[in-house]
């Protein structure tokens, strides 16, 4: 491709003649960089010659801060080694070029951040999918299933963050979905008539499902009500529904009474309840309960009106129940001790213990729709009691809009919503439907779907109390402000830092703070990537969705523990404890006794566990792999971004791939191949900065398992891995543990990154130059408090930055 012709540029700077980039006016270019261009570029791309019709000396030097894509082009050409051309006599050294590339990349990143941080008079931040669900839940006490098929879409992200206002776009489908969602939500909140309670219990195997031949025999033996449904690994049970359909959409409570037999050496059976129409897992849990002591597990889930399509699985690998193993026979199952049906495999060993993980289902119970009195009265508060009373309509819609918009409502706004109700009444709609139309308009209004900050008529640099309440509430709870925050906003005391401190303490003590820990950890650490490149089934047969969920669960609950346990940022880098459940402990080769099967418990790590801190958690090690191989460079980039807040420049286009290891050549680790690859000088400069951050984890494979040898193609024995490295500043490490120590020594760098990430999340925008001083003072506050996470969150909320638009 030829260098494209320069479009007519409106140049802010016209440079002096003679091929020199004038020092006075080129303020944007660092001297070293300017020298580079003067020495190596301007001769062919300057005043005298314009090879490829391209001229550098007239470009604006505000690299990244003006719309000058030519600099990107220049960066990429230098980066790929294409420019300066190979035939040039005095070609710059590779590291010189690399420096220029890095400098340009940094400016572009700054420019981009500044552009994204730029704010008009009003910033509009669309609610994310999760925030929408939480907000309507708090507003009307209705659970909306935003992830069901046809409901809301996943939100776009920017460097992992899902709540950046400028990135969250809005398409017509969003509006259609908001309309549809609001109709569904209002229909559930204000049904035509109050739904009758729905309740009942049924046996897993009903009398009429028992083969007639056996029915009378068992009745005579008094065993007919003892018939159970046995589930082999992978087996499915369809008999969850009661006879009647669900009367209305709502929250229902479902209980299963069942036993779960765990073979001596093997996994526990796992109950998985799945709604096929909604494509949603309603519940899963390992079940261990002896045959004669079944347990009852209960969960609540939101279901639409009608007949659910529930499939219950024993979701554990094992012999298939297809050909010969667990086909259900006509003989009703009562106990495993009765032995196998002729075509089945043996159920028990000599001691009568189960050979496979079995679930044995007794009965199912239902209850619902469940609605608390508080929710009921909240809904009622927004609905006129008297048919046709327009004053009440106005009052109710006003109350709803105020809560929904998270601020006082103007008369003009309210007139509009009341107007809709009137128009609907004029069109002979029923009063109830007419009021709902007004509510519908509120739920689709810009003031509900966007969290707005600023005034349309004046420039304002700081937040008002209502906006502070919303920012705080969406930060810590991912939802609208509660009654207390509302009252404080009304009183106008949320600017007060002592009050803000009190609120942080109160809000973090609330269980909704889990939304912050889960969501922030996911976005900062990019946990959404775990499982994105599905691990190869042949190479990693242990890997399944349950393990994947446990991996992510460990990292999220680790974050929660650091926050709620009063711990410091150091724990993220290195710790002698982690959060574990039984399955994950087995996976790590740690003792699993006494650990919960689901949920997480803090455990001390043995000295030789090779774990501790975030970086050696399975989730982090997996998300930086490609499903087949570990990727040291990806790991390095991840550490660089998550811990040091720096994104390395992109790799040049068209790098030669790392050659494969021929099957007839001696085995080599990926690292050996990588090192051969980066002998290429133009790659080496960048890789020297990235790779040492990733090579420390060579002891962990693509799904985070510990290893000392790398399994690879080729001849000979599998080579030993080499987890040593030298940081760009010369410090060396030989093991992942030593690497963690080096990171700890750089705690201030990490402190700064962490605060920047927290601010990006909290302010819903990228961080720019103009935030630098405020960030520094939060960092100093963090240091003064020994980097305690809780104090950092508080310092951020009481900072001036938090109240800045």
């Amino acid at each position, binding site marked *: 491709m030829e260098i494209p012709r320069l479009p007519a540029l409106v140049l802010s700077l016209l440079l002096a003649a003679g091929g020199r980039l004038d020092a006075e006016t080129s303020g944007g270019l660092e001297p070293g960089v300017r020298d580079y261009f003067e020495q190596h570029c301007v001769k062919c791309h300057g005043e005298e010659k314009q090879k490829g019709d391209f001229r550098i000396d007239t470009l604006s030097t505000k690299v990244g801060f003006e719309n000058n894509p030519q600099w990107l082009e220049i960066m990429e050409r230098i980066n790929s080694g294409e420019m300066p051309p190979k035939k040039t006599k005095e070609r710059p050294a590779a590291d010189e070029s690399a420096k220029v590339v890095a400098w340009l990349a940094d400016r572009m990143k700054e420019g981009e951040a500044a552009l994204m941080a730029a704010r008009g008079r009003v910033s509009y931040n669309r609610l994310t999918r999760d925030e929408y669900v939480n907000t309507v839940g708090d507003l009307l006490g209705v659970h909306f299933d935003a992830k069901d098929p046809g409901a809301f879409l996943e939100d776009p992200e920017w460097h992992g963050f899902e709540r950046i206002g400028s990135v969250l776009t809005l398409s017509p*489908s969003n509006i259609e979905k908001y309309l549809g969602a609001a109709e569904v939500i209002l229909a559930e909140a204000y049904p035509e008539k109050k739904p009758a309670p729905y309740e009942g219990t049924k046996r897993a195997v009903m009398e009429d499902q028992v083969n007639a031949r056996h029915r009378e025999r068992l009745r005579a033996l008094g065993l007919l009500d003892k018939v159970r449904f046995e589930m082999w690994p992978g087996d499915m049970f369809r008999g969850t529904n009661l006879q009647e359909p669900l009367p209305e959409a709502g929250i229902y409570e479902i209980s299963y009474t069942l036993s779960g037999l765990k073979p001596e050496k093997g996994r526990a059976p796992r109950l998985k309840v799945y709604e*096929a129409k909604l494509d949603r897992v309603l519940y899963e849990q390992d079940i261990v309960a002896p045959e004669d002591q079944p347990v009852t597990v209960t969960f609540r889930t939101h279901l639409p009106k009608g007949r659910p399509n529930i499939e219950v699985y024993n979701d554990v690998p094992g012999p298939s129940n297809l050909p010969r193993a667990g086909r259900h026979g006509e003989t009703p199952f009562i106990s495993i001790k009765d032995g196998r049906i002729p075509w089945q495999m043996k159920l028990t060993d000599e001691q009568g213990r189960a050979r496979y993980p079995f679930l044995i289902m007794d009965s199912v119970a239902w209850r619902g729709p469940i609605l608390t009195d508080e929710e009921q009265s909240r809904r009622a508060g927004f609905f006129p009691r008297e048919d046709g009373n327009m004053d009440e309509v106005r009052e109710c819609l006003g109350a709803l809009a105020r809560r929904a918009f998270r601020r006082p409502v103007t008369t003009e706004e309210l007139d509009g919503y009341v107007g809709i109700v009137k128009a609907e009444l004029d069109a002979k709609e029923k009063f109830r439907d007419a009021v709902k139309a007004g509510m519908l308009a509120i739920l689709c209004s810009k003031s509900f779907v966007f969290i707005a900050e600023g005034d349309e008529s004046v420039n304002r640099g700081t937040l008002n109390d209502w906006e502070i309440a919303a920012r705080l509430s969406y930060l810590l709870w991912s939802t609208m402000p509660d009654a207390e925050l509302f009252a404080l906003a009304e009183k106008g005391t949320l600017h007060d830092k002592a009050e803000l401190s009190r609120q942080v303490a109160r809000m973090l003590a609330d269980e909704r703070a889990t939304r912050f820990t889960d969501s922030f950890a996911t976005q900062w650490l990019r946990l959404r990537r775990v499982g994105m490149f599905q691990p190869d089934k042949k190479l990693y047969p242990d890997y399944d969705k349950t393990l994947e969920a446990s991996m992510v669960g460990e990292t999220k609950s680790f974050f929660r523990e650091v926050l709620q346990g009063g711990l410091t940022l150091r724990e993220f880098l290195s710790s002698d404890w982690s959060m574990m459940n039984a399955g994950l402990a087995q996976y790590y080769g740690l003792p699993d006794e006494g650990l919960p099967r689901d949920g997480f418990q803090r455990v001390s790590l043995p000295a030789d566990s090779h774990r501790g801190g975030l970086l050696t958690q399975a989730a982090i090690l997996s998300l930086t792999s490609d499903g087949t191989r570990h990727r040291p460079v990806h790991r390095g980039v991840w550490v660089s971004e998550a811990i040091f807040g720096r*994104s390395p420049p992109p790799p040049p286009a068209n790098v030669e791939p790392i050659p494969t290891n021929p099957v007839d050549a001696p085995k080599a680790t990926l690292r050996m191949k990588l090192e051969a690859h980066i002998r290429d000088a133009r790659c080496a400069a960048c890789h020297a900065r990235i790779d040492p951050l990733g090579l420390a984890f060579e002891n962990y494979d693509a799904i985070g398992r510990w290893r000392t040898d790398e399994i690879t193609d080729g001849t000979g024995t599998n080579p030993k891995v080499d987890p040593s490295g030298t940081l760009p500043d010369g410090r060396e490490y030989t093991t992942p543990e030593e690497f963690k120590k080096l990171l700890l020594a750089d705690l201030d760098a990490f402190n700064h990154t962490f605060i920047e990430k927290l601010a990006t999340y909290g302010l819903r925008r990228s961080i720019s130059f103009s935030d630098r001083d405020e960030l520094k003072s939060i960092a100093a506050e963090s240091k003064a408090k020994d980097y305690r996470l809780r104090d950092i969150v508080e310092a951020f909320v009481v900072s001036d930055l938090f109240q800045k638009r």
Partner: protein
Amino acid sequence: MSNLNLNRWQISRRQMLKGLGACIALPLLDCMASLPAPSKPKRSVFLYIPNGVNTLTWQIEKAGADYEFTKPMKSLEKHRADITPISGLHHPMVLGKHHNCEKVWLTGANVPGDGGAFRNTVSADQIIADAQGVATRFSSLEMAIEGVSLAWSKDGIQIPAERNTQQIFNSLFGVEKDSKETIRRRLSRRGSILDLVAEDANRVNKKLGSEDRSKLDEYLTAVRQVEERTRRADEWLNVPKPVVPASEAARLQRKLSMAEAGEYYRLFYDLMVMALRTDSTRVITCGIGSEGNTSGIPEIGILQTRHGLSHHNGDPEQLRRLTETDTFLVGQFSYFLDQLKEHKEENTPLLDTTQVLWGSGMAYGHSHGNANLPTILAGGKTLGYKHGTHVDFNLPKIAKYDITDAQGHYKICSKPVDENARVSNLLLTMLQRVEVKADKFQDSVGPISQIVA
């Protein structure tokens, strides 16, 4: 278009109704008074495959009419007269920038090289939908087997794709549970609500400077488009949805998954064919897989994701498997062409009135080489296409392919040989074939004359 044509079309539509009566009941024309006059369909379908192909086994080496299909494309032999494989095309602004290539396949937009915020531009299918979408119930259909939508609005916002086949069937052919009256009331209520929220947003918008308005503008545009859709839905309310015969309906409503990939792919293709047969829409985009996570294909013994395979690292076994999945994907495409040929309208196969683009925004996936993109254009004879040759933009400059030199061929797939051979030229050609008045699309240089009759 002249009245004469229009009348003839109307008549033939009635005749077709008679002829096909037992098969598919088309909407009654009498009810269509308020709707745009029926026009002769000019259809477009865009199909995207992720991660490129095994370029070593893919490349057709000879240009012109007597080219030989390579192994993965063998199943297209029977469609030779109706297709044109094209070599050498690329999107200049995204060279070397990888995982965004599905987003710009139909738009050609620039992607910032540093992972920064990306704003797309309008996709070709949506421009076509503006011109060809007025006469049908749905101006366009966006679907995806796996992965995301290919369609982007004029504001550069992605138009979400439907991935659930039952939802697709329901929106096309499903009978509404509510009465017509209830739906009309709901639509009219939606209409007045949209009016109000637009007015409310507009009031604020007017006070903001033009630079401050982008998010509110986005909201307003979206609201207005939904108003338009609501109006359209209202107009179509009196026209019953086409009735699909019970046997076909059952087949199209099966619940399948990627565990039976072939069946699943064909279900999507069958839905597309049915949407075109019933003239429910004339513009369809379908993402066949996602760049990151397209599932393996158990029935040909491949469990790895396509992304995993594309990073084959030169391993012969991985390359073999990649070729196998390429072959599989082309086989499914060939099935789609079969179906379009089989179904006729006025004795003309659907394929002749449908231009189909099949391809990828990636060529050599392993090191993200995205020049020489795998591209096949099919169908649309009556739209003025001339098929039957392999159009190659590399050969005039390189004279000859040497696939035995893998690295050499990968270079061709990473760096354009002819910088003027742009995907945008092809998209422009496609726009012009279906009466979009355009002489430029994105960075197009001009239409591709070799394929125009």
